[in-house]
């Protein structure tokens, strides 16, 4: 009798703590960053479920409208597993952004992720993808007609010239 009396409030407290943490995590996890005039980046950390995908898409669309951006870099470097469900969520985000006239590049694919997507038979033929955020940014610059050149007299040259002049 005394046991059940103490367990119920403890469980309720636990439940509340979990809810609070969930709210905190969902706020933390969907930052939309303006990396350049007209270029947004959306780094995704952790797994993507339906609720999160919706939050993400919503905040992304708002930012596209607010900033008038043309290109979005969807960075999935920190997404551990990309399965059919995650891929579907990502594609929905891509399609939604496209309706606003923004081009979405999915960047940060590992070779493992790429192979998994191919094996799962997920059609990404209409989506532009790149292995790294840097490659995506370089492509975004060239789409916007921008060129990055080293300062005159600068002795510091990048290891990969492709990164600077796409």
């Amino acid at each position: 009798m005394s046991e059940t009396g103490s367990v119920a409030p403890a469980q309720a407290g636990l439940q509340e703590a979990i809810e609070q943490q969930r709210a905190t995590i969902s706020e933390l996890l969907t930052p939309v960053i303006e990396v350049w005039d007209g270029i947004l980046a959306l780094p995704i950390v952790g797994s993507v479920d339906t609720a999160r995908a919706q939050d993400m898409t919503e905040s992304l669309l708002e930012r596209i409208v607010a900033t008038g951006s043309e290109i979005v870099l969807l960075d999935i470097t920190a997404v551990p597993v990309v399965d059919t469900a995650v891929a579907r969520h990502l594609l929905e985000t891509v399609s939604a952004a496209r309706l606003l006239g923004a081009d979405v590049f999915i960047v940060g694919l590992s070779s493992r992720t790429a192979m998994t997507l191919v094996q799962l038979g997920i059609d990404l033929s209409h989506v532009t993808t790149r292995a790294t955020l840097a490659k995506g940014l370089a492509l975004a610059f060239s789409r916007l007609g921008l060129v990055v050149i080293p300062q005159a007299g600068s002795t510091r040259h990048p290891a990969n010239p492709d990164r600077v002049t796409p």
Partner: protein
Amino acid sequence: MERVPIIRLGDVLIGTVQDELYDHDALQLQEDLGLLLERGVAHGVVLDFSTVATVDSFLARLIGAIAAASRLLGAATVVVGLQPAVEVTLVALGLTLPGVHMALNAEKALALLAYLRRDERGG
């Protein structure tokens, strides 16, 4: 069993397949290419099959998978030097390798990759 050597020439990776390509080596090639492309070192892959006498359905499918995975990592794949007999067999088997670019030789493959790259920037 022999690992397919991958040469990096500028920002193109060239894999020259020797004589027979066994399943194990083909999977190793896929893995090696993936790890290189993941680092963003290349925008194109050329696979030379000029000395390969037989291509079975497994290998054909794997070439398709390599091309698809490479595209996701930002690189186009061009297969060169398939022998006429091999091509006839592939077509007869219904393996037309969609999504894989073909070229007559390595030189034409490099020209094709350069063209694809220009096209992508403009788009």
